[in-house]
């Protein structure tokens, strides 16, 4: 009887070993699985009619519940509904030459940063008119890269040549020039978050926070966390998201720029990125990643 009992006894882990392993895990001696965050792929903005697209930017129209993808290679703007269904691909009669970014300025007016002619191209659907404007600062033409709409419909532009952010008037002249955060820095993206403007510097791999009055209030170093940062976004809780183009990852930081987790990775399948270009939140709290190398925008929900 004793013999049978001993044979059937389960090979239980000794209590001392259980305690030791548990202690090590809680003490951080055993690496836990890498956190992937709460994000799940909801859908992709893509369509067979744009099979050579190289999207460089996404504008989300909360009022009309539409996504507008800028297809730089096709020289067109591609719209999708809130659920990701393709609506149309369009361009003005004059065409678009290397469009790069887009915002909607009013009910029927879109503004496109067009690299080819180096213009802010104003597409007025109501007036059925397209104007190419060149913005100048003290006689020097800006090379507009990124566009954002801030509080009260204010239009902001990033000038690639000077690396500065500008606020523009309704007539597309310079209303305000932001100082460079530091010497030999190149801003590559910015987002307006309430009364703050968050900017990303690629040379020094730093985040800069300006008040909308132009005062630089914060400088956060992320050089150890990213290889080639191209875009940033800030969510409602104040968490910071940085898109790493070469790694194909999104790095998430807390308000003090302390690393929280990293997710996605380089590749072509769903949930993978191939030389992504821009990241932003839509009005419905979804995270949108412009996945240039895969010719799509991937939308993630929590």
């Amino acid at each position, binding site marked *: 009887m004793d013999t049978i009992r001993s044979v059937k006894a389960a090979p239980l882990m000794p209590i001392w070993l259980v305690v030791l392993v548990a202690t090590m895990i809680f003490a951080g001696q055993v690496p836990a699985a890498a956190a992937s965050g709460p994000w799940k792929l909801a859908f992709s903005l*893509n*369509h*067979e009619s*744009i*099979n*050579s*697209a*190289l999207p*460089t930017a996404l504008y989300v129209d909360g009022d009309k519940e539409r996504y507008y993808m800028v297809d*730089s*290679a096709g020289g067109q703007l591609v719209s999708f509904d809130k659920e990701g269904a393709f609506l149309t691909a369009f361009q003005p009669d004059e065409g678009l030459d*290397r469009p*790069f970014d887009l915002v909607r300025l009013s009910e029927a007016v879109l503004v496109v940063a067009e*690299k*080819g*002619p*180096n213009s802010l191209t104003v597409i007025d659907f109501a007036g059925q008119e397209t104007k190419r404007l060149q913005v100048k600062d003290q006689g*020097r033409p800006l*090379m507009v890269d990124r566009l954002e709409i801030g509080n009260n419909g204010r239009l902001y532009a990033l*000038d*690639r*040549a*000077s*690396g*500065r952010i500008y606020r523009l008037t309704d007539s597309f002249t310079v209303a305000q020039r932001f100082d*460079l955060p530091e*010497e*030999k*820095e*190149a*801003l590559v993206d910015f987002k307006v978050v309430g009364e703050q403007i968050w900017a990303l510097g690629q*040379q020094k791999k730093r985040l800069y926070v300006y008040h909308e009055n132009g005062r630089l209030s914060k400088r956060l170093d992320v050089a150890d966390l990213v*290889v*080639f940062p191209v875009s940033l976004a800030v969510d409602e809780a104040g968490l910071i998201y940085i898109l790493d183009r*070469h790694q194909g990852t999104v790095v998430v930081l807390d308000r003090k720029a302390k690393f929280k987790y990293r997710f996605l990775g380089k*590749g*072509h*399948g*769903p949930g993978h990125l*191939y*030389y992504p270009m821009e990241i932003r939140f839509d009005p419905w709290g979804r995270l949108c990643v412009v996945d*240039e*190398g*895969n*010719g*799509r925008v991937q939308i993630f929900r929590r």
Partner: protein
Amino acid sequence: MKIRIGILTLIILLGAGGVVTAAPGKTCISCHPQEDFTGKIVHKPVARGQCSQCHNPHVAKYDNLLSHQGGALCYSCHGEARAAFSEGVQHQPVKEGRCLTCHSAHVSAEKGLLRGPVADSCFSCHEDLAARQYKVKHKPFAEGDCTACHQPHHADNFQLLKNDGDQLCLECHSRPASLAGHRGFPDEIGQCLSCHNPHGSAGKGLMRAALHAPFAEGCTACHGKDSATGIDLCLGCHAEVGEQMRAPHSHMLAGEGACVACHSPHAADVDGLLKAPYEQLCRSCHEATIERNRRSLHPHPETEKCTDCHAPHGSPRLVMLNADGNAVCSRCHETQGKFSHPVGSEVIDHRTGQAMDCLTCHDPMGTEYRYHLKLSGKKALCVQCHRSY
């Protein structure tokens, strides 16, 4: 008494000659000749006869019965060096743990157990530099004193310079003397390496070979009273570059340092007035990419210039290619350009809905799979699309 004097004389002579006879393990030298371990400078374990500090006398995983390989073996004693050497810019052999590229493991005639005189060690890898027969040579270079300007292991500065370029020059060339040689130059002498080659030159003053045309004529073409500044100054003449930079992907850097991040505005030894040869220049910003290729199991063979595939100013294409993916690859891979897996706008990668090209399956910046495939070509890559297989 005579014997004592004789012994004393022998000791003095040996000391004066600087020759130390090592005492490797007695058992070892019964087969390995003593003279291999005799020299001016002897590695401490060798001098103490502690061969087994590095070698296992019976069996080992590594060549020469070494207990560890490369830097791991050296750092087992020189642990403090590992941490120190990991900071800043690392010399390539240090980065790869190849200490024996420069150092001898047993004995040497040179301080620091160097394999030979400093310059010989350096030129054994930097052959192109050794081969250059400059008419005018910088004194430290002529004397083979490379470490006068460069750190051998790691440094805080580009090209392992001991100090920031300008500061380094001014350590020997005093500011007043330098100003006297640069009449009309602003007070702040700087960017010395922009005009001068620190090793040698065919001309006076170590001037670099090719001069920027406006510089050859004087200074005022660019530094006139009403001259533009930064990129606007350069694009004033080089309008075609401005056109190339008006692309979704551009190397346009902001501000004053825009063009001069890569080009010298005055003089250079590399075509296009580049500040350094392509790999060095591109590496100064794209270190991670170049290292990824180099460290991958199947790296792309080195091309002469990064611009063989990439457009240096700007491109509408992904990764700043200078033509579409198929065209760039088939310039060298001619056969695959004519006969390959179908590619082009009619062949769609179902994962992305995008047209296929060479870069759909290959990553020319190196991968862990043969032919720079992104996944194993035996199956994993193919079944991404051909699922029924």
